[in-house]
């Protein structure tokens, strides 16, 4: 008898026939397991949702309390039986509450990575490599040109620019869930003790991080009257706000942007960024490769991003590899710009 299929890609997302659930589905489904709160993975309108408490909280903050019919909390490391299939959530190191989901039918073990990174992050628990038969990885930065530098060095660039241009406001674009708070924490680690100013679109999630015990120091929301006075200050905002009407009132603003995409100069130039900071919440090429080896998987599936390059590499080390090209992921930024507009 052939192995029953444990997980299979469908237009709605990864589906488990035995357990009758989807993981990070891109359309409304009766039962969804959610890896983390970014809008491309966590959508409203499902029947029941199983996710970490923090992911559920973030979904409620973004979509309202009625984002689904019923919800269930998954604790890191605790096995949960879903229609006879055992699922376990493990930290993914991506954003607060983010998880990999391990699916096991007693014979085969598959780990769905969700989005993940390996670099240390003061705002969320670190990624744990899980041994499995099939590893289903993201591949946002899966080209060997993406090697993220030490994030402390990148923050150093921001602080030296502030020292050189004390008369200019430094607008720091960062995705409002995760990256913004991580940047605040990194700036604090680097010794910045002035208040950090934030755009309204970053406020809700930042407050939530603080309530969850992440120490970010003094945070102030920018009002229209503050804007002309913020020379020499750091202002966190969604990436799209840098080029928005909103940015005009700041004194001679320096446009900074914290993102893995800033590694490629043409990308930074295209967005009019003056101070690109290469800080990413996704694994870079070396970390993707290292992680795949650590899982000791014999088969690699790649969900979204530069799937062909990663699959090619995996085949050169003897793994069976297949790019799934799932549609609907990787547009966290789009989601962030929607927020900024709202």
């Amino acid at each position, binding site marked *: 008898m052939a192995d029953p299929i444990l997980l299979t890609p469908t237009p709605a997302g990864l589906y488990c026939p035995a357990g009758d659930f989807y993981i990070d589905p891109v359309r409304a489904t009766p039962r969804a397991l959610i890896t983390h709160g970014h809008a491309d993975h966590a959508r409203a309108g499902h029947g029941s949702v199983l996710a970490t408490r923090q992911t559920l909280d973030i979904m409620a903050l973004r979509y309202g309390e009625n984002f689904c019919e019923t919800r269930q909390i998954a604790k890191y490391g605790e096995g949960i039986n879903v229609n006879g299939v055992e699922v376990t959530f493990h930290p993914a190191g991506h954003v607060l509450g983010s998880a990999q989901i391990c699916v096991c039918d007693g014979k085969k073990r598959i780990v769905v990575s969700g989005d993940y990174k390996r670099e240390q992050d003061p705002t969320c628990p670190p990624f744990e490599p899980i041994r499995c038969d099939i590893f289903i990885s993201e591949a946002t930065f899966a080209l*060997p*040109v993406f090697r993220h530098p030490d994030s402390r060095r990148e923050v150093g660039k921001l602080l030296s620019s502030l020292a050189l241009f004390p008369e200019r406001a430094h607008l720091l674009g960062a995705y409002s869930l995760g990256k913004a708070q991580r940047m605040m924490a990194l700036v604090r680690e680097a010794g910045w003790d002035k208040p950090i100013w934030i755009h309204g679109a970053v406020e809700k999630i930042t407050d939530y991080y603080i309530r969850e015990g992440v120490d970010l120091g003094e945070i102030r929301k920018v009002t229209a009257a503050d804007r002309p006075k913020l020379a020499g200050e750091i202002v966190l905002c969604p990436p799209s706000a840098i080029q928005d009407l909103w*940015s005009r009132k700041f004194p001679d603003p320096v446009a900074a942007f914290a993102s893995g995409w800033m590694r*490629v100069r*043409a990308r*930074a130039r295209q967005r*009019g960024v003056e101070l690109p900071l290469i800080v990413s919440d996704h694994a870079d090429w070396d970390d993707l490769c290292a992680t795949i080896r650590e899982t000791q998987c014999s088969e690699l599936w790649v969900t979204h991003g530069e799937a062909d390059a990663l699959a090619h590499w995996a085949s050169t080390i003897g793994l069976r590899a297949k790019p799934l090209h799932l549609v609907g992921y990787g547009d966290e930024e789009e989601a962030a710009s929607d927020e900024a507009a709202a």
Partner: protein
Amino acid sequence: MNRFAELLDRVAFEHSRNGKLRLMADFFRNTPDPDRGWALAAITGALTFRHAKPAIIRQLIAERTDPVLFAMSYDYVGDLSETVALLWPAPDAASVGHNRPPAPTLTEIIELLDETPKADMPVALGSLLDQLDETGRWALLKLITGGLRVGASARLAKTALASLGDLEPNAIEEVWPGLAPPYLDLFAWAEGRAPRPVTSDPAPFHAPMLAHAIEEADLAALDPKDFVAEWKWDGIRVQAVVGHDAEGQRVGRLYSRTGDDISAAFPDVMEALCADAFGDAAIDGELLVVRAGKVDSFGALQQRLNRKKVDVKLVAEYPAHVRAYDLLSEAGEDLRTLTFSERRARLENFIATRRPARFDLSARVAFQSWDDIARYRRDPASAGAGEEAPAIEGLMLKHADSIYTPGRPKGPWWKWKRDPFTVDAVLMYAQRGHGKRSSFYSDYTFGCWREGAQGDELVPVGKAYFGFTDAELKQLDKWVRDHTTNRFGPVREVEANRTIGLVLEIAFEGVQRSTRHKSGVAMRFPRVARIRWDKPSREADRLEALEALIGERKQMSG
């Protein structure tokens, strides 16, 4: 090297001129000799590496990476140096850590590249790349492939250097041609620690004197008797300098207005300059193409500009010529402290007695009143310019008593340009600007009507990003946001059809044929003269109106 690389990287992204200046000055202040001098040489384009070539880089990366991953990466990044810099595998973990030697300095790198024979270059370059970080590798690769365009001109770097002390940028320009990297004496002078470096250049560049623009209304305040008028030719401003070095060898150079040595591109002018008839002298003049005794259009001159190699056929077809209007030195005597009239007499005598080939005198335009000048400006042919009138772009008015002052002093010299051409065009696309303007749609692509398959259609004819006031920019920005039909990244397509569309009156200096543009024409120096809120889009001009102007220099009627 890594610090220099960081500077280049930051300067390339910085939008404001002042910001770039501050970054460079900060670097010069905090970087020791001789590294900062080599950095200055790199930024001003004073370095070349004979043996380090792109082919070596391709070979090095091919030896170190999977070809499929390289191809995917190059395709994604789109720039060879940057792809290689990012892709370069980090050296073995064993060599990383506190035992690793410090990254090489810029000085060490330049010495190494200079001394390494061709056969050893791959190994030497590979080891350098191993020792640098990603930004360092990127800068090194850009440096050796000659692609180090950092968004900072040589002029800006010299201005940053001048700001270390209280020098004028022009003072740096004056001594620059006689100096060589790493410029220790220059930095010492800029920082006030040493006297002005002695230049040994027998044919130095002289920082040029420039004119301010003037309008008709301003003329009333000036006395016509004080001024000398000359035509303003549509070429490029040059300086032709000849001198003798310590060994008695003749040295001739042709400089651009910014002090770049452009001798190599103009062998025809250089031949005249180095002939015996031409004594030691520095002539300020306009470089033009003269065919059959007549000045040709700027388009003809452009055939000779910005070329790496001299094309013998082009030289014959577009012979270059210098129209002289000032004499800055003669036989070792600095004439710049004389008055214009005195220098002019010396110049006339120089041209008349030496009769140098390919040089002639810029004619004086006789006049009695400003009304005469206004008339000549409208119709140069009537004032003796004859067939050369199309190559005239206005008049120069020089105070007879003016001494030659580098820079743009207000008062002694004026330029009164002829009216620009204008065309009414329809706004088609708008793009976000840079820096302070990054939140505004401030770069406008506009089009004119032409006959298409389905009746009249708009075809883009040019792009303008200035000419409007801040208040108008806000109005334009709002109009773009309210009439967007499509977005492509930073670009918005706006409504532009026979019923809806915004008409812009575009001023420009000329039209050339262009195979690179869909419309077949390219405008020189287009800018927004007026926003025609009142004008229906279907009444904007047709492409034929622009085509009729190709090669034309006269004022467009209507």
